């Protein structure tokens, strides 16, 4: 296992043209990168799971983070949360443009919603890494 990982690490970086379009599409449309690389089943499942999580977060009236500076914890939480939200791609952009982003409300359900929104973005990052590995030929 360790040897296998070492061999993977030694593989040369593929050209940017080989993976950038698929990764970019994967960011913009969750599951889109897999669809572009003809991994239809996986792409559809990822799209449904990530979009489902994001929509559930919105319906629970979760809040979108905005980058804020201040003490370390405030900066870390708000900037990290904002990056997580942005990683959802078109879902985040549409939510912001169409005015569905909601202010932070007190309550357990809204808090869950906020976490759902950020986690959808983080899951999309995992999907983008998977797309990169497939496009680079490191994974089927």
């Amino acid at each position: 296992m360790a040897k296998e990982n070492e061999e993977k690490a030694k593989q040369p970086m593929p050209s940017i043209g080989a993976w950038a379009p698929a990764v970019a599409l994967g960011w913009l449309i969750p599951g889109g990168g897999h669809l572009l690389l003809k991994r239809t089943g996986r792409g559809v499942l990822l799209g449904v799971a990530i979009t489902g999580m994001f929509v559930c977060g919105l319906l629970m009236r979760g809040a979108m983070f905005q980058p804020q500076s201040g003490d370390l914890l405030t900066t870390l939480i708000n900037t990290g949360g904002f990056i997580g939200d942005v990683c959802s791609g078109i879902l985040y952009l549409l939510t912001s443009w169409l005015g569905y982003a909601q202010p932070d409300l007190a309550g357990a359900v809204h808090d869950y919603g906020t976490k759902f929104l950020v986690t959808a973005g983080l899951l999309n990052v995992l999907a983008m890494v998977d797309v990169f590995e497939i496009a680079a030929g490191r994974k089927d």
Partner: protein
Amino acid sequence: MTMNLSHFEAAFLFSLFTSVVMGIVTKSTDRERLQYGAYVFVCFMVALFGIGWAMQLGHG
């Protein structure tokens, strides 16, 4: 339109979506993906009930 879920329902949905993605991105064959996705989901459920009961018992 809003969703008003209980803690359990929200955690269940969270576990379900996360397990699907974890299963797909971490393994290389469909069989392994299905097994790992199910394993992650069961781990979430065990942690959910375990921590829930620990809080209940700790609360007194």
